[in-house]
């Protein structure tokens, strides 16, 4: 038995250094401007040192939401690294929820050392397909490189997120927030955003 859900819950998964926290603050800022109460739970004590980083973004028209999304509570999960996406999706995605993932692995040190094995990306995607209504997947770094900077991988994923139409703020507001946050990198970031959006739209239409 579960009570009625009062929040929109989005998670961004990745590895420290991928820009996950910046991306979540863009969504949060835009949602506040769209009239929501917002809370973003993040752990970034060690985030720049290659650990797994997950942001819990919660929006509500009523009370301030608690900082962590309960298990199976995320309406949307987006991931910048495929194994990290699955780690989050398994525990948090509402069955039938929306998800987007990058397919380029970032190998953990223990895998390089031969102490652990990185799963096949296809196997990760297969697990995601069992939980999500639709899996949008592509290499964020390929699109970021095309936009002009590998640093813009997080903007690629925001563009794709916007294309799903599942977050209650329009694309222009997100783009405006990005442009204001990093005025000098505006062009590259918006180009990355658009490449991500176009790729996601293409995959959504391809059903």
């Amino acid at each position, binding site marked *: *038995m*579960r*009570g*009625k859900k009062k929040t929109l819950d989005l998670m961004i998964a990745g*590895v*420290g*250094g991928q820009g996950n926290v910046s991306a979540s*603050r863009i969504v*949060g*800022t835009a949602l*506040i401007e769209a009239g*929501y*109460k*917002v*809370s*973003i*739970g*993040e*752990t*970034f*004590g*060690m985030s*720049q*040192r*290659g*650990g*797994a980083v997950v942001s819990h973004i919660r929006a509500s028209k009523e009370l*301030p*939401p*608690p*900082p*962590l999304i*309960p*298990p*199976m509570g995320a309406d949307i999960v987006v991931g910048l690294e495929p*194994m*990290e996406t*699955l*780690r989050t999706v*398994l*525990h948090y995605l509402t*069955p039938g929820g929306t998800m987007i993932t990058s397919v380029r692995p*970032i*190998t*953990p*040190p*223990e895998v*390089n*050392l*031969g102490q*652990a*094995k*990185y*799963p096949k990306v296809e*196997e990760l995607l297969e*697990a995601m397909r069992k*939980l999500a209504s639709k899996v949008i997947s592509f290499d964020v*770094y390929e699109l970021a490189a095309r936009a002009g900077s*590998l*640093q813009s991988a997080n903007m690629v994923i925001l563009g794709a997120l916007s294309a799903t139409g599942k977050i209650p703020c329009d694309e222009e507001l997100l783009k405006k927030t990005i442009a204001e946050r990093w005025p000098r990198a505006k062009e590259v970031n918006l180009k990355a955003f658009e490449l991500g959006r176009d790729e996601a739209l293409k995959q959504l239409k391809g059903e």
Partner: protein
Amino acid sequence: MPRHVIGIDEPGRKALLLGNEAVARGVVESGCHVAASYPGTPASEILTTLGLVADELGFYAEWSTNEMTAVEVAIGAALCGLRSFASCKHLGVNWMMDPLMHITYFGLGKGAMVLASGDDPQGWSSANEQDTRLHGYTLELPVLEPSNPQEAKDMTIEAFKISEELHAPVILRLVTRVCHTSADVTFGPIRKIERRPVVFSSFMDAYFKAMMAKKAPIPFLHERIHRDRMPKMREISNNFPYNRLEMDGDEKLGVISTSVCNLYVDEALSVLGLEGKVAHLKMGMSNPLPDRIIAEFVDSLDEVLVVEETEPFVEHNLKALLKDLSPGLKLYGKESGHIPLSGELNTSIVAEALAKITGKPYSRYTQEVSSLIAEYEPKITARLVTLCAGCPHRATFYAAKRALARLSGGKFIGVGDIGCYGLGASPPLMAFHHILCMGGSIGLSNGIAHTGIDVPIIAYIGDSTFFHAGIPSLIDAAYNGAKITVIVMDNGVTAMTGFQPHPATGFTATGRPAKKISIEEICRACGVEFVEVVDPYDLKGTEETILKALEFPGASVVIARRLCATEQVRRWRREGITPKPFIVDPEKCTGCKLCITTFGCPALVWDEEERKTRIDVTLCIGCGVCAQICPSNAIHSPGGD
């Protein structure tokens, strides 16, 4: 335009603020004059943010050398009649305890002082789950516990008012999920209080009062706390606007929670469909407990669940109250096993406790999701944190291990310290055996040396940590003749907590130029006769110098100096420079894998199919250290060097 949004005086404005930034805004809205801190996760961003706006708003902010000196700055300013603020992580409060334990007896006179502690349930960025509320109890000072960033700002303002009323410091007890949660915060007006410092004499006044009353001064002052301050504190708690009762009067079950747990309880009640059926006392001030509110709360209830992180602090104090108020009441919490005794809480944990009490069904996962987790979870590997690509510490550890291999066949005892370089304990570096506390690397090494053990002893301590707590034990080493080698891992910033400046960086918390304090001069002044500086990116030179230091017949220091790689990339980015990753020549790479198994930079990736190393261009910063390690000269710069 201010350097941070918290500097904008626009009441009613909404901004997405980190809990720590919200506290900083609260400090600004309170008209605080002096703020001091030492960085520590999860509380660091409070002073970072204050430092950005201090000059333009006209108050003073500093990064102090450690938490003790920070709180002394705040106490000194408050004694002069100003409003002052200090912040730190929970463990920093231990350093503050000596000055605080005294000022709580003497009082602050006309000034006001707020201390914010960032507690870290779950130890996300700490090696223990210390609960500052117990320090508040020992200090006999009020403890406030905001549940979200908005409350963090608003309760900072309340804390200053309470401090002024009591003439004593007030503790704002934050937790990671408040410090590091971002949320919409609505601004109030920025208060401007004229800075009018006065000459004070509270210490002697207190003594004279005791002597005039013909009493022993210390018990007299302690009694004064119990007689005067405690009843006032209790009254403040009973009237505190953030100690809120939510009940109709016909409930039989109630929940008492504090801090972020207030929100978990709300959501758990909603998930279980129990909204409006369970009474809820949300507490924003937990020391002392609001006895009258609690009496009203338990009056009609049969059962109460206490939800708090991390010690059963409210639970124990509530039990003491219940003995007279309602001895028959059934109390659930940590001691009954409904709430875990350690770790961070969340909505699910609270829902499980409430389900157990009420008999409502609840499970975290459906059957289907449980079986998917069981199938796929084992295939997902752990992802441990590691030193960044290009990290100079990795090169220093590697060089030291080479030196130790030559000197003693790799036998040694190593002790690390608090900072990024703590990660040097993990494979493949395994550079030391223990980490204890700030400055513990040198202190422990001294003790190990005096056992007479016949292996080299090496202590690794960061630059900021050296200033914080390394100097007294280094003096001990020189004075008492401990034969140890200290490596100062000098990466030019307080990197672990977010690249804050320290006494050797040449700039202050507000970004102004400052006197650069020289680590090597301090070491020499401490009496150490072997002090050398090396560049860790020069592996061979570093190895030779560390070997000489290890062979030196007394305490020795090697300062391994090279800017933090992540900070370097940040500075490059500001200048429009992109790093130039190195390349592995697949023709020359023999697949010996030594670069990964002995050095292990995360930019070195093992290609299982080709059985060769390749370099991840998204991570490599082009430091070139791995090129010095490769026995086949297979790694080179993009230019071919």
